[in-house]
């Protein structure tokens, strides 16, 4: 029997690591992968609480999170390919097209 707190600590650790990737790295691909890591840590939280309460709705929400993540990755990589075609850079600091 594993205490729920252990799962939550693991999820918090992975979330902080993913946030470090989003905030500190310059490569857009690494930023997207760190985002995936953060989404997975949140899913661990959902499943841990669902397991602790013996409630299946945690798993249902996790299924939806995974489906929406797949959609998000497809759109994000499409934007990335279009961006590479036009700007020829992958560094987040140089992508300032939206700045007024």
């Amino acid at each position: 029997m594993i205490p729920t707190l252990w799962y939550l600590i693991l999820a918090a650790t992975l979330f902080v690591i993913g946030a470090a990737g989003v905030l500190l790295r310059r490569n857009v691909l690494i930023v997207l992968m760190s985002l995936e890591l953060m989404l997975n840590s949140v899913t661990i939280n959902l499943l841990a609480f669902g397991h602790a309460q013996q409630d299946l709705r945690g798993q249902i929400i996790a299924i939806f999170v995974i489906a929406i993540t797949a959609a998000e990755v497809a759109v994000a990589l499409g934007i990335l390919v279009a961006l590479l075609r036009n700007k020829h850079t992958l560094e987040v600091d140089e992508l300032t097209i939206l700045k007024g």
Partner: protein
Amino acid sequence: MEREFFLLLSGVATISGLLVVVARNPIHSALALVACLVQIAAIYILLGAPFLAVIQIFVYVGAVMVLFLFVIMMLDVRKEAQTRYLRGAAWPGVIVLLLLAAELFALLIQSTRLHAVMGPGQPISQQPSVEDLSLLLFQDFLLPFEVASVILLVALVGAVVLARTDDKTAGVSADRSQQRGRQ
């Protein structure tokens, strides 16, 4: 025995998660992310969700990470490995991260209401079956399920529209090059 498995899996997941952020080469961090996602799938099995573990491996490792690897292979990775690694002004980000970590762990360890919600923890043997899960998904959550499928369709069309080359401009430039060739 369960605790040893959990400690092993979470240790490997944390180390490979760190590798995702630390590695210079994007291919290395993609492979580290694959390792991390497989560990997380095993943790889902410990949490009594074998169906989600399979979904995790199919969708994340099978589809999402292969998509990432394709995009990485389309780029020039060697040039990327030589560029500057961190952002210029990293100190505000580090401070925000330290605050985030302190807040999360203080909340986890000290909050009594959270501990009341968590309960003592359940043994793994009490697993709900996949049949229960599918009944709940297709009875109570049928509308969100359909909405999710529509969102997937929209994302599919959006990705195709974003990633294709613009036909008009491509056709015009092709015509021009043909005219130049004739001249």
